[in-house]
């Protein structure tokens, strides 16, 4: 058992560190600002061209077929260099890899991974949040295409997306999670309108809602077979719950480092409670980094994390919100740029217990599927 880098990992880290020394775009070092979202495509392509993106994904589609630990090394080094985080596409790539046929994979994965095409994810609806299976967006077959009508919300990156991974009901007679299918639908067409949603942090570039009014998607763009939509959605959600996919452990540690600086620069300006909050933020963010190491290692055995992902999601949530509380209580009241970014970090943290399945849903899953508690 060894937490230290192997020789090859260490060489990779050195090479990446050198590249970052020359190529750090010095964007806002967090995903809580609109400036970040504006420049993110460029940053994505820059990482990709240098060979530091999609490290664990198949070579055939532009990845590098390395173990997932290399993605995490990238996360750690980006955070250490105060560079922006790695764009977060793992959940889309994993779902397409796991469920789509070779034609769909060949057509979509290379551009998705290289950053030439932007994607969003159309799952939630105004009346289908936690109860995702009750979604009502319909896709009706019309010769070699489907006609899509419905309303999606909480759609991340809908404003810049070229494609949407859409979950829609293809069998109107089926109820619940049966009769759903997944599609890659082009966003730039007359039948689709999207409207950004401004979040409580003030960010307006990340979230949107999308209306589909007789929008068209070719039948060959179905991901998996007809009726596989729920399975595709579950793959997406499982990966959205895993901190190692998201690079969040490094993001939290970066915020913690910034907070440490506040207290070091002016120790007399803070009370014991603020020091205590910082200490918990260190403890929790370190714990998450070690959890990521453990999960990455378990993957070397080919283990697939299904429902344990709910445990990791709750741990990640707890860390993000502990760090968020420390951020607002230590620095949120300073009326300057850093203070504003810490306030945004705090406000952004409130979404973590909602996105990718609420904390309450995760607890239900853990109780039933891990602990074997009977259903109510």
């Amino acid at each position, binding site marked *: 058992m060894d937490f230290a880098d192997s020789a090859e990992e260490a060489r990779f880290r050195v090479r990446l560190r050198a590249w970052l020394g020359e190529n750090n775009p010095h964007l806002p070092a967090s995903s809580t600002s609109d400036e970040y979202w504006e420049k993110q495509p460029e940053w994505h392509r820059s990482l990709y061209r240098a060979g530091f993106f999609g490290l664990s994904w198949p070579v055939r589609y532009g990845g590098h077929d390395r173990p997932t630990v290399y993605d995490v090394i990238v996360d750690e080094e980006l955070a250490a260099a105060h560079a922006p985080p790695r764009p977060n596409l793992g959940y889309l790539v994993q779902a397409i890899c796991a469920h789509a046929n070779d034609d769909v994979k060949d057509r979509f994965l290379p551009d998705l991974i290289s950053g030439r095409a932007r994607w969003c994810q159309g799952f939630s609806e105004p009346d289908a949040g936690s109860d995702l299976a009750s979604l009502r967006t319909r896709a009706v077959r019309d010769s070699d295409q489907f006609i899509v009508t419905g309303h999606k919300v909480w759609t991340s990156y809908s404003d810049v997306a070229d494609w949407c991974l859409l979950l829609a009901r293809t069998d109107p007679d089926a109820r619940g999670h049966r009769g759903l299918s997944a599609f890659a639908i082009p966003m730039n067409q007359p039948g689709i309108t999207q409207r950004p949603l401004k979040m409580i942090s003030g960010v307006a570039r990340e979230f949107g809602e999308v209306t589909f009014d007789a929008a068209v998607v070719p039948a060959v763009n179905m991901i998996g077979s007809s009726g596989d939509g729920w399975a595709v959605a579950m793959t997406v959600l499982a990966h959205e719950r895993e901190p190692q996919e998201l690079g969040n452990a490094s993001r939290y540690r970066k915020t913690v480092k910034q907070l440490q600086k506040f207290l070091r620069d002016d120790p007399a300006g803070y009370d014991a409670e603020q020091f205590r909050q910082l*200490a918990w933020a260190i*403890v929790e963010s370190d714990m*998450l980094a070690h959890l990521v190491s*453990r999960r990455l290692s378990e993957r*070397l055995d080919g283990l697939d994390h299904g429902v344990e992902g709910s445990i990791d999601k709750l741990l990640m949530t707890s860390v993000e919100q502990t760090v968020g509380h420390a951020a607002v209580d230590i620095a949120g009241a300073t009326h300057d740029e850093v203070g504003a970014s810490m306030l945004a970090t705090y406000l952004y943290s409130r979404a973590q217990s909602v996105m990718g399945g609420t904390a309450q849903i995760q*607890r239900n899953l853990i109780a039933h599927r891990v*602990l074997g508690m009977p259903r109510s």
Partner: protein
Amino acid sequence: MDVRYTAEQRALCQAARRVIDRLGSRAVADLADERRAAALDEAVESSGWRELRAPDDRGGPIASGVEVAIVAEELGRGLADAPFLGPTLAMELRRLARASQAVDRETVGLRRNLAALASPGEPALAIDARDAGSALLLAADGTLVAAGLHEKAGSIDLTRPMALIPNTEAVTVGSLTEADRQRWTALALTITTADLVGSMRGALDLAVTYAGQRVQYGKQIGSFQAVAHLLADALVQIEGARAALLYAAWGVDSLAPPDAVAAAASAKAYAARGARLVCETCIQVHGGIGNTWECLAHVYLRRTLLATDVLGGVGPNLARVLEHAGLGGHL
């Protein structure tokens, strides 16, 4: 990086699990079963687990902090009343001091609040003192001494009795450097963290079993979200504590001493907070039964209270974490 257990570590884990499943306490009445306790003590003795930190030919420990944590976790899960914590910490002190092995079973003497090793002459308690003949104390100048044990004292932990250390002549056995002392502190925090994680697992198993059996309003109480979510949160605490523990256990022998202490302090703070939550959840889920002496829930809680106090719980360890971050003296 590869933090999977080795084949030997997996085998050790299974061996410890088998011993505990056979000889651990599954009911409060088991604690009074002297034959069971003696059989468990014999099993721990013959397995060599108390010698994991004995010196090898070159003075290094026979086994790393990871093996120590594996055994401590399983013993904590099964409420083992055979000494492991005390003898292992004593063995480590003697190894670091390059002292000869103790003749009889030995443990360590801590200050009355258990937060640090006691110096000779100050009021001290020997922890985990069943069948121990002596306890090690550490003077401020690093001199390590062995003192004979006096009479039994009460313990909050029903599985690990304490003994008083009389203020009599102590025998010098060696001396420790500051780095040795840090190495020992890292091990002490790690082993108590592992004990906490094990006890949390045992307490949650107990609560989950009960929630699957107890019926109210015509349903098993585990089917109610209010109960199910308490149990889910308990599991999340355990998994988080376990992640921090593994790093600390590896760090005992692989990190520089100040970093090893910080990693272990971080894990201990996390686990100590979680242990209280999990054990209190166990009592709550058991309702009125959980507040009776006959329910094992309080035995778990008491065991975690002792493991928490040894070398300090949440407060002292958050302070250690801050000190490592260059922010000492503020908690």
